[in-house]
């Protein structure tokens, strides 16, 4: 019998089907309906902004990452997610810069995939928010044809973008905070309200998230913890002080759905233990309500997640699982 070259490797010699690139690309693909909805509501501008953010992220990953790391799909997710959190009228160079900053500063500086402390997409967004506060809070209205352009996407880098006043509006959270004006829950659920490209359609985000959970690619504890905490805390506040928004409005407005389902669940920056994930989600929920109700900004999901990201190592340390045969369950 002639023996072919035999491979010698360590056991186990079988492995489960899901690989890291497969998980990443599936999560990226699950964003497609949200991207399409964003384009429907905010025109081709939305698609352009997302593409620019993704390009910025992926080019930076290609330049600074290990060879081939662009194909693991994580940079694509970061770019598309960042794009979904931006206003559709943002100049494309800003979106691209945000993507580059998110990957370069938020991920590569820490050592690449798996090493970063903060969610890279949110690092990119926080950078843009700090650098370009006006374009980042200029929200185009919904309702125009999906092939139209909004705002000033093609502004030349480092020039002041031109915005046409009549075509912008405040987000539901801004309307409530600064003008005391409510928005119908139905619009919030469907998504025909102003806001970031991908945050408006709560129903669609929940459906995409549910599909990922069903596929076993997303951890459901974090979003459930966030939703439960936001609902509980805001309901309690509303009971004490009726001027504070109710639980349902809190849950359906702003970036809460997108942030909870797609950003807080980023496995790299969230705790790895089951109990840790509950705590992490609850922390985000409390912070979101605090920032929205008492903070100077109408929205707080981004900072809430980034703050809790910083606590992740401590939460992990404090929630190590009980080892088999130890603790109260083991006979002495």
């Amino acid at each position, binding site marked *: 019998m002639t023996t072919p070259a035999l491979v*010698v490797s360590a056991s186990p010699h079988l492995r489960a089907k899901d690989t890291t*690139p497969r998980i990443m690309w599936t999560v990226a693909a699950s964003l497609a309906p949200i991207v399409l909805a964003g384009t429907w509501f905010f025109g081709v501008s939305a698609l352009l902004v997302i593409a620019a953010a993704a390009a910025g992220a992926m080019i930076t990953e290609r330049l600074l990452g290990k060879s081939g790391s662009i194909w693991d799909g994580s940079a694509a997710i970061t770019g598309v997610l960042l794009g979904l959190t931006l206003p559709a009228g943002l100049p494309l160079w800003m979106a691209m810069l945000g993507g580059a900053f998110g990957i370069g500063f938020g991920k590569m500086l820490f050592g690449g995939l798996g090493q970063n402390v903060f969610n890279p997409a949110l690092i990119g967004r926080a950078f843009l928010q700090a650098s370009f506060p006006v374009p980042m809070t200029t929200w185009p209205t919904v309702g125009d044809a999906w092939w139209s352009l909004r705002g000033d996407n093609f502004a030349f880098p480092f020039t002041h973008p031109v915005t046409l006043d009549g075509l912008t509006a405040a987000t539901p959270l801004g309307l409530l905070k600064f003008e005391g004006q409510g928005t119908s829950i139905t619009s919030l659920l469907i998504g025909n309200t102003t806001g970031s490209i991908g945050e408006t359609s709560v129903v669609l985000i929940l459906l995409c998230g549910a599909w990922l959970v069903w596929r076993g690619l997303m951890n459901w504890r974090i979003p459930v913890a966030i939703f439960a905490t936001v609902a509980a805390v805001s309901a309690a506040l509303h009971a004490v002080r009726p001027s504070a928004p109710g639980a349902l409005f809190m849950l359906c407005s702003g970036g809460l759905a997108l942030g909870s389902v797609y950003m807080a669940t980023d496995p790299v920056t969230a705790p790895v233990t089951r109990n840790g994930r509950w705590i992490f989600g609850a922390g985000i929920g409390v912070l979101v309500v605090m920032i929205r109700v008492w903070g100077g900004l109408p929205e707080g999901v981004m900072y809430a997640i980034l703050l809790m990201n910083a606590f992740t190592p401590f939460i992990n340390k404090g929630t190590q*699982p009980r080892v088999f045969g130890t603790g109260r369950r083991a006979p002495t």
Partner: protein
Amino acid sequence: MLEKLGFRHGVHPPERKELTSGLPIRRMPFPGEVVLPLRQHAGKPAVLVVKKGDHVERGDPVGTADGWMSVPIHSSAAGTVTGVEWWPHIDGTMALSVRIAVDRYALQLPRPRLVPHWEGLATTEVVKAVQEAGVVGLGGAAFPTHVKLVPPANTRIETLLVNGAECEPYLTSDHRVMVEYPARVLYGVRVMMGALGVSRTVIGIERNKPDAIEALRAAIPTDLDVSVLPLTVKYPQGAEKMLIKSVTGVEVPSGKLPASVGVLVQNVGSVAAIAEVFETGLPLIERIVTVSGRGVHTPANLIVPVGTKLRDVIEYCGGITEDAGQVIVGGPMMGLAQANLDAPVTKGTTGIVVLAQSEMRGPEVYPCIHCGRCLDACPVFLNPSALGEYAMRERYEDMEPLHLADCMLCGSCSFVCPSNIPLSQLFSFSKAGLRKRKAAVA
């Protein structure tokens, strides 16, 4: 409330037992040569008692036990000792081994011997007979069986747990033993219960073997308190601590033996081997091996003389296919990939699995993304993600408080890891590294 029977976590690898689960056990013809390593069991290797040129009959000792934690090795065929050499061992090292040219014309009948009638024997004599027959755990670890028959002082065994879980994919040797030799299994149970003074026995079998469950249930004698318990099909159901948890609901305390909760676990094949000692007087010189996998032409369950080279067994099964990529001794979850097919079948060889290239793990490794799947897979609730990060930085001391010692290297974490990180290999390394560092300090 009664705690649900079963164990938490674990994984579901593809079972692929249908390749051989319906095939009756066949006897493989004697090979031209057998090679008997003196180290086939946990504990001290046997002491050589033959030299080049000696003639041995089938069943004659070639090595004797070196103290309590050791068993003798017997020749599995009549023939002539052609040398005592360092020979490839299935664990990847070289081992001092006795090469025997099998006598082609011998009848291969063992020398006439007295069969001990166990009922008249004192426990110590039963234990001695088991040791002299060279019986070890046939589930893979090859722990000397007679040592288990003498539980540590100030523990009392109340339940004998016979392990028929066979949770490794592909393997069906225990399955076939239970289907074809239920009476022998129960005779072994009777001997063990007598020797240990145990009144209750539970035979745990995964639900994917309904014919084995039925066969054993039908064979239970009326005078023995023996029950057959169907178990959830989940890896590693056959791990000692998992099995005990599934059957009794009790967790064996970390760092303690099963005896501390009054249980003794014995593999079903070993129980049958004990029975054989008292039925035929023959020592452990052959065993049932599952030869399976997409890389082998004719999968089979075979009675193989210990010492038969892997090459001869595979050749008897029609050889390996064009696209074969890996030969594994044992199951694919914990078995050892072979580099040299001249290594012989040992007492602990449960199976030979030949994987096709398309079934093998790829070499590409990605960084840990902290997805937490390993935490949900680990049957002893460790944090393989954190342990792996320490292991890669060789921070073994930091792994101790995270219960590295409780890891049993079942491979569930590596199996689920989407980044293909060789976690259980890292932990095996870390355990050795930690031992070495402690020895250096002491």
